[in-house]
């Protein structure tokens, strides 16, 4: 990423940005605090000369004792990508929702909730999207305990239908 753009992004974000890294192939990754996540996304979207108008992807991460969220943004105007990251403690994972800034975040955040159990404050319809409503646990967490089965169907191959 060209240094000029990096400068513009950091000036747009101001002191919201805690750190900036450049993972290979992913453009720029900005770490922010969870409470300032919508603010950071709004600034990246609205700022003249940046205009990261597209939310390409949103997902979660299990970082061991913390849970992370990543928002990958793309700008058509300057043809570049930026990722915005934040992390929250595992025992009370609440992140402000970004679906007022990006409509696409709606289902992405539902999937992140479904898989990691990260709750998005202010999300209009936060429920499971892929798994059944009454599923227990969040499967993509590292400490997920595999269920024996679901709805009376067991995992093992003993109880097959005659």
């Amino acid at each position, binding site marked *: 990423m060209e240094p000029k753009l990096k400068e513009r992004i950091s000036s747009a974000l101001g002191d919201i940005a805690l750190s900036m890294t450049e993972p290979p192939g992913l453009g720029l990754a900005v770490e922010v605090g969870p409470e300032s996540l919508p603010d950071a996304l709004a600034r990246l979207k609205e700022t003249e000369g940046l205009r990261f108008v597209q939310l390409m992807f949103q997902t979660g991460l299990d970082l061991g004792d913390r849970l992370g969220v990543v928002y990958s943004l793309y700008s058509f105007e300057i043809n570049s990508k930026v990722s915005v990251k934040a992390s929250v403690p595992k025992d009370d994972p609440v992140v402000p929702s970004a679906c007022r800034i990006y409509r696409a975040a709606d289902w992405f955040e539902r999937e992140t909730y479904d898989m990691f159990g990260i709750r998005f404050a202010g999300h209009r319809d936060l429920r499971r999207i*892929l*798994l*059944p409503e009454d599923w227990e646990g969040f*499967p993509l967490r590292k400490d*997920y305990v*595999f*269920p024996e*089965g*679901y*709805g009376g*169907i*067991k*995992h*093992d*191959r003993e*109880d*097959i*239908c*005659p």
Partner: protein
Amino acid sequence: MIERINMFGRFEDDSRHILTTVDKAVNLARSHSVWYLLMGLACCSIELMQTGGPRADIDRFGSLFRATPRQSDLMIVAGTLTYKMASRLRRLYDQMAEPKYVISMGSCSNCGGPFSLSYSVVKGVDKILPVDVYLPGCPPRPEALTEALMKIQEKIRSERFFVKEF
């Protein structure tokens, strides 16, 4: 007089009659009108579509797809069955009229296949349905599905409904 045997039974050259049993005649009709339910759950359904398409063309066996279980005789479970879908699949099976048959198509529906270590995949549709023909492959080719259909036809032709009771 030369006697010949064909699919119906016995018939004679100089006769206008064909001697057969009701079972054989009924089964002949049934085995050549096996309508299957569109039960494409994953990528196997692409092969299922190919089998219904012009090259493999199982229309020539009298099989065509139905979009409702109430008109179907055969359920081809094509693809990965998840726990969320399992109750729906069972309900669709229950809505089919007897006699009904099931082909379990591909590794996923046989035993979970590549997803056999997953938390959300049913490890074989035989956990919730009685399966008549297991079709291996990932995915099976259209020729293989045609063979499975022919196995179902064989099974239908071997069935007996009209039994003399003593």
